[in-house]
């Protein structure tokens, strides 16, 4: 069947690309993942723009111009954090991380594939949510697109680090509960959909230094006003360093 001579690894870019495709398909095919990464953000976008159930201070801007960046930030959080934490924790429990680490992909390639898979899903989210928002009359500031990309990348780094920290240290069932709970709490009170400044009392101060508040703020500044918001981006970078260092130290490959 096989002759053992001449065996070897495929080139690293091909391995990582294969893993990226594999991860992306896994997320987009999983019903629950699709629900939190695409369906819920779309529903939220439409509901927040078309109804006034939630009061928003828009300072003269249209509702969709305020809501769309926030929903994009939420979508990034759902993919980079909740979906990734759950998927990785179950892969860890089922030995998938161990098995793939024995193939030429290795641990580094596995991580790279996961991060690129998250970015690929985010591209799908931006296309779908951006399309719906544009149809609802969204007019993003084109000069802020570069700043928005920076914000999405830093937000992804911070939230993916958080996801891996949870997934690599806690039981899969616990991660499932915590990742969903954190998503809901941050969506409501984390300054991601509603600007941190609009939250009541001390919550406003707390939310602005959370990664959720910082990502929401950075995206609103970029897409509403075309501004690169240094403060929120620094907050995201800080979380990335802290959570990334913790994940690198504490992550366990097998349960």
């Amino acid at each position, binding site marked *: 069947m096989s002759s053992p001579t001449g065996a070897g690894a495929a080139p690293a870019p091909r391995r990582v690309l294969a893993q990226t495709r594999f991860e992306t398909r896994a997320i987009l095919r*999983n019903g629950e993942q699709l629900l939190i990464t695409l369906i819920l953000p779309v529903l939220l976008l439409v509901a927040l723009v078309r109804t006034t159930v939630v009061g928003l201070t828009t300072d003269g801007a249209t509702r969709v111009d305020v809501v769309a960046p926030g929903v994009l930030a939420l979508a990034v959080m759902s993919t980079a954090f909740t979906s990734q934490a759950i998927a990785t924790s179950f892969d860890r429990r*089922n030995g*998938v991380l161990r098995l793939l680490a024995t193939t*030429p992909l290795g641990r580094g390639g596995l991580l790279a594939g996961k991060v690129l898979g998250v970015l690929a899903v985010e591209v799908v989210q931006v296309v779908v949510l951006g399309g719906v928002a544009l149809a609802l009359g969204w007019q993003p500031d084109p000069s802020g697109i570069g700043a928005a990309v920076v914000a999405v990348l830093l937000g992804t780094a911070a939230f993916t680090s958080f996801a891996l920290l949870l997934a690599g240290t806690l039981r899969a069932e616990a991660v499932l509960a915590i990742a969903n709970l954190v998503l809901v709490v941050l969506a409501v009170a984390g300054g991601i959909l509603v600007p941190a400044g609009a939250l009541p009392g001390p919550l406003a101060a707390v939310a602005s230094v959370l990664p959720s508040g910082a990502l929401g703020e950075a995206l609103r500044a970029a897409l509403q006003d075309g501004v690169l918001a240094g403060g929120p981006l620094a907050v995201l970078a800080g979380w990335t360093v802290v959570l990334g260092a913790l994940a690198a130290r504490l992550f366990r490959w097998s349960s």
Partner: protein
Amino acid sequence: MKRYDGRAVVDGLDLVAERGAVTAVLGPNGAGKTTTVECCEGLRSPDGGRVRVLGLDPATRARDLRPRVGVMLQDGGLPTGARPLELLHHVAAMYARPVDVAALAERLGLGSFARTSVRRLSGGQRQRLALALAVVGRPELVFLDEPSAGMDPQARRAVWDLVGELRADGVAVVLTTHLMDEAESLADRVVVVDHGRVIAEGAVRELLRSHDDRTLRFSAAPGLTLTGLAASLGGGGVPPASGAHGEHAAGEHAVHEVTPGDYVVTGHVDPHVLAALTTWCAAHDVLPYAITVGRRTLESVFLDLTGRDLR
């Protein structure tokens, strides 16, 4: 000529696997089999001692070893949402020159469940998929942890055939197993591990021979007076029933009634001994209703080595 393909030393445990041979690692639960194998796979780092796989240290040279070593984990390690054929293609893409995926899938009968998600597969189906993943990259060395657990006889046969072919291709195969018949029919060498060290090793034939070759069992009425039987087996004749007491006579044979009505003769067994037994039975008006001559099995040797207590 011997070439050392893999060599692991963990807590005084020496394991040498040769190219083109199947080495079975046997041991009770908790004996240290999986831990040892995981050190060789680079999934665990030993706290002391030396591990060399294909001449390299798996802890520091993992990148060089991964393309050359195939691994089938005990818990499978399969992503539950993936589909078998897609997963096989995916893992094949990690290697420069993988085997033909379609042909491998066909060999292991993956076609019948190629598009069913891993979550819905039976234990035996998952095992077959995990085995395919372990060999798809043309490894020089394969670790198989309990390869045929949960398989039906047909699947097991397919797996055994594949392992035989890997061996013929010069691959070193290391398998851990609880199934003694699997080890007996597949393995060239057997290493019995208990409490983290090797307690016996060698070719299967040697191991069976060194623990005496045959046994003779017979069933008859319970509570026979075995006086003189053992002695008569050695001499080949039937000495008159003497006044000697005690059921187990001296000499090279011993006779035990292991359970009421079941008797086991240990010692050298040949046709003369069998004839002597029936002659003794005739002289004592005993009609055995079953007489069997059996080779020792690997299982009985294993139990003798590791004890019969539950772990």
